[in-house]
C-alpha cells in the first residue's frame, strides 16, 4: 500500500501556479491530495486526529472500499473532503442518523461518524444517545475543542464552566457534558478519550476500535488556538499541547475504573484513557435474530 518515495508534481499547488515537486508521505494515498491545502488553522488538532484514524484504517486492515466517513457541519466535519473514502457531508447534527441508515442498508461497510462537540452533542445530542442505546454498529469520533470554531468561537455543550467565548463574554454559566460518562451511560460499548498530544495512543485506539462492533465512541481533545485557546489565554496550538502534557492523567493512574471523574475543568487534571470496552449484540444482529425466530 505504501507510496513512499514516489515523487509527484502538483500543478495546482502554490500561489503562483508553479510546479511543485514533493516527496509523498506514506499515507498520502489515503488523502485527496488535490484537495489540499486544507481549511484548518495553524495549531488546530483536527488533522492529527484524522491522521490517526487513517492509520487505524490501515492497521485494522479495513479494505479501502469499505471505509465510509459521515460528518455533520463544522471544522471537524470537513475531514470528508480530505480523506479518500466514501464520504458524506450531511447537515448540522445529523451525521449519526444518516450513518445509521447507511450502515443498516449495507452492514458490510465500516462506517465512521467524524464531527465536532457542538454538532454531536448540542444540535445532534438526541441522535447520539439513541444510536448508543440501540447499539448501532458505528464508530463516532468527536473532536472536542470546547467551542464552535467554524462560526468564530461561541460557547457550546462542552465549554468548561467559567470559560470565555464570544457568547459567554463573562464566563460560561453552564455545566458542560462529560462525554465519556455520557457515552458509557447511554450504552456505548467502547469509550476512550485522548488529546491530540497522544498521537500513538490515538493510532492504537483507532486500530483497536475499528476491529470492535457496536456503538463506539472516541473523544479527541483538540486545540483551537485561534478561538478557544486565545480567548482563554491557553495560547498557541503548541502551548495547548503543553497544557495537555501538564494536566493529562492516564486512567490507570486514577482510582476509578469507570468514566466517573472525567469532568473537564479549566486548569484541572484531564483524565484520558480507555474507559469502556465490551461487546453486546448490535441492533442489526438482534433485529435479524428476532425476525429469524418469528419466521420459524
Amino acid at each position, binding site marked *: 500500500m505504501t507510496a513512499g518515495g514516489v515523487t509527484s508534481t502538483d500543478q495546482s499547488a502554490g500561489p503562483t501556479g508553479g510546479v511543485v515537486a514533493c516527496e509523498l508521505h506514506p499515507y498520502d494515498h489515503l488523502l485527496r491530495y488535490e484537495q489540499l491545502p486544507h481549511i484548518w488553522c495553524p495549531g488546530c488538532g483536527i488533522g492529527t486526529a484524522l491522521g490517526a484514524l487513517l492509520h487505524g484504517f490501515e492497521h485494522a486492515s479495513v479494505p479501502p472500499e469499505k471505509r465510509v466517513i459521515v460528518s455533520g457541519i463544522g471544522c471537524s466535519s470537513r475531514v470528508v473532503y480530505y480523506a479518500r473514502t466514501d464520504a458524506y*457531508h450531511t447537515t448540522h447534527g*445529523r451525521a449519526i442518523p444518516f450513518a*445509521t*441508515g447507511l450502515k443498516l442498508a449495507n452492514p*458490510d461497510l465500516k462506517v465512521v461518524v467524524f464531527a465536532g462537540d457542538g454538532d454531536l452533542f448540542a444540535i445532534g445530542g438526541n441522535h447520539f444517545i439513541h444510536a448508543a442505546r440501540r447499539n448501532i454498529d458505528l464508530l463516532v469520533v468527536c473532536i472536542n475543542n470546547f467551542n464552535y470554531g467554524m462560526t468564530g468561537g461561541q460557547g457550546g455543550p462542552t465549554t468548561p464552566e467559567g470559560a470565555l467565548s464570544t457568547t459567554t463574554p463573562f464566563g460560561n454559566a453552564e455545566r458542560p457534558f462529560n462525554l465519556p460518562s455520557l457515552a458509557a451511560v447511554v450504552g456505548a460499548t467502547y469509550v476512550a478519550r485522548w488529546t491530540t498530544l497522544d498521537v500513538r495512543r490515538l493510532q492504537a485506539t483507532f486500530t483497536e476500535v475499528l476491529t470492535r462492533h457496536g456503538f463506539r465512541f472516541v473523544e479527541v481533545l483538540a486545540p483551537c488556538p485561534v478561538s478557544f485557546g486565545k480567548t482563554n489565554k491557553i495560547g498557541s496550538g503548541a502551548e495547548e499541547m503543553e497544557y495537555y502534557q501538564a494536566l493529562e492523567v492516564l486512567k490507570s493512574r486514577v482510582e476509578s475504573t469507570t468514566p466517573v471523574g472525567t469532568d473537564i475543568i479549566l486548569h484541572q487534571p484531564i483524565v484520558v484513557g480507555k474507559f469502556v470496552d465490551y461487546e453486546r449484540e448490535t441492533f442489526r444482529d438482534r433485529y435479524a435474530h428476532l425476525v429469524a425466530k418469528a419466521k420459524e
Partner: protein
Amino acid sequence: MSEALNLVLNPEIDASQAGPHFMLGDHACAEGALYAGCRFFAGYPITPATEIAEYLSERLPELGGQFIQMEDEIASMAAVLGASVAGAKSMTATSGPGFSLMVENLGLGYMMEVPTVVVNVQRGGPSTGLPTLVGQQDMMQARFGSHGDTTMIALAPQSPQEAFELTVHAFSIAERLRTPVLVMMDEVVGHMHERVIIPPPGQIPVFQRRRPDVPRAEYLPYRPGSDLVPPMALAGDGFAVRFTGLTHDESGKAVTTYDAQQLLVPRLREKILRNREAYERTELYRTEDASTLVVAYGITARAARRAVDLAREHGHPVGLFRLATVWPFPEERLRSLHDVRKIVVAEINLGQVVLEVERIAGGYAQVTHVGSAGGRVPSAEAIAEACESAAQRSP
C-alpha cells in the same frame, strides 16, 4: 455477526400480494413502496401516517428489508438518505408536524441528489392542529419548505388504489432523476378502506437508478448525463465518492463561489423541469366542451368530479383538471385547454395551489377558490355552486 442484509436495488420480487384487496389507503401506499422495491423504512409515529410505519414494520422483514423507528422525523429523513446512498430504495412517512422537521434534510437529499420517497399524509394545521382530520395545507411547504431554491416533485393520490400506484411511480421518478419525491396524501385517502388491485410484479414498470459506466478514475459523482442526471455510485462500490450539501463541483469538492453556485443550482432545477415526462400526470374529465374548469387533487378531486356532473345537470359546461402531479405544476397541460375562461380551484386550505393557477391562467381565465381551513372535504354541492356562479359571471 449475522448474515449481512442485502438491501440491493433489485430485491427479490414479491408476488404474494398480487390481486384484489379491501385495503386502507396508508397500507396501499406501503404496498406500493414494497412493489417498487423499497426495502428500508425509517419513521416516527404520527397521526394519520402511523399505519404506514406499523404495516411496514411487519412486511419489510418478511422481504429481507429493514424497518427502524427513529427518535424523531429529523433522524428519519437523515436515515432514509443514508440508506439510499448505500443502495437501498428507502421511504419515510409522516404528517404536517413531522414534515416540518424533515424539510431541512429533504433539502440535503435534493442538493446531494439522493433518491428517496417522503410521504406526507396531510392533516389540518397549523401546528398540532387537527391530528385526525383532513387537510391539504402543506402543499406550498412541499414546494418551498426547504430553504434555498428547490424544485420539488409532489404527487397527490385520490384513492387507496392511486396511493399504491403513485407510490410505485414516486420511487421510479426518484431513481430516474436522483432526487427526493413527495407523495402528498391526505387524511381521508390515508384512512379510507377501498378496493385496491395490486398488479403482478412487472406490470407497473419500476426504474432503477443509473450507475456509473466509466472507469473509477474517471467517475465524477456530480457529472450529469445528457438528461442532467449524474449516474450514482453507491457507498462501498469503490469509487470513494464525496456527497455534500455544500455547493460543489462535479467531483463533490466544496466550492462555495458564485460561479459554482450558478453551475449547480440551476442544473438541479433544470434536471427536474426538463424531464417532465418522467413525472407529469394529470386527468381530464368532461373537458371537451368545458369553458369552466375545476382544478383539484387528492380527495378533493373526487368531490370535484361529482361537482362537474352536478353543474352539467344544471346546463353548465364544466370539466375537471385533476392533478396527480401537483409540483412542478403541469403548466402546459392547463394552458392547452384553450376554451377555458373560468377556473375554480378546490383544495382543503385557505389558498395554495390556486396561487399557481392564477399565475398560469390569470391572464386568460377568471380564477376563484373553494376551500376551508381544514377538517372536512368540501362538498360536491359547494364546488358545483362555485362553478355555476363562476360560469354565470361576466368575463
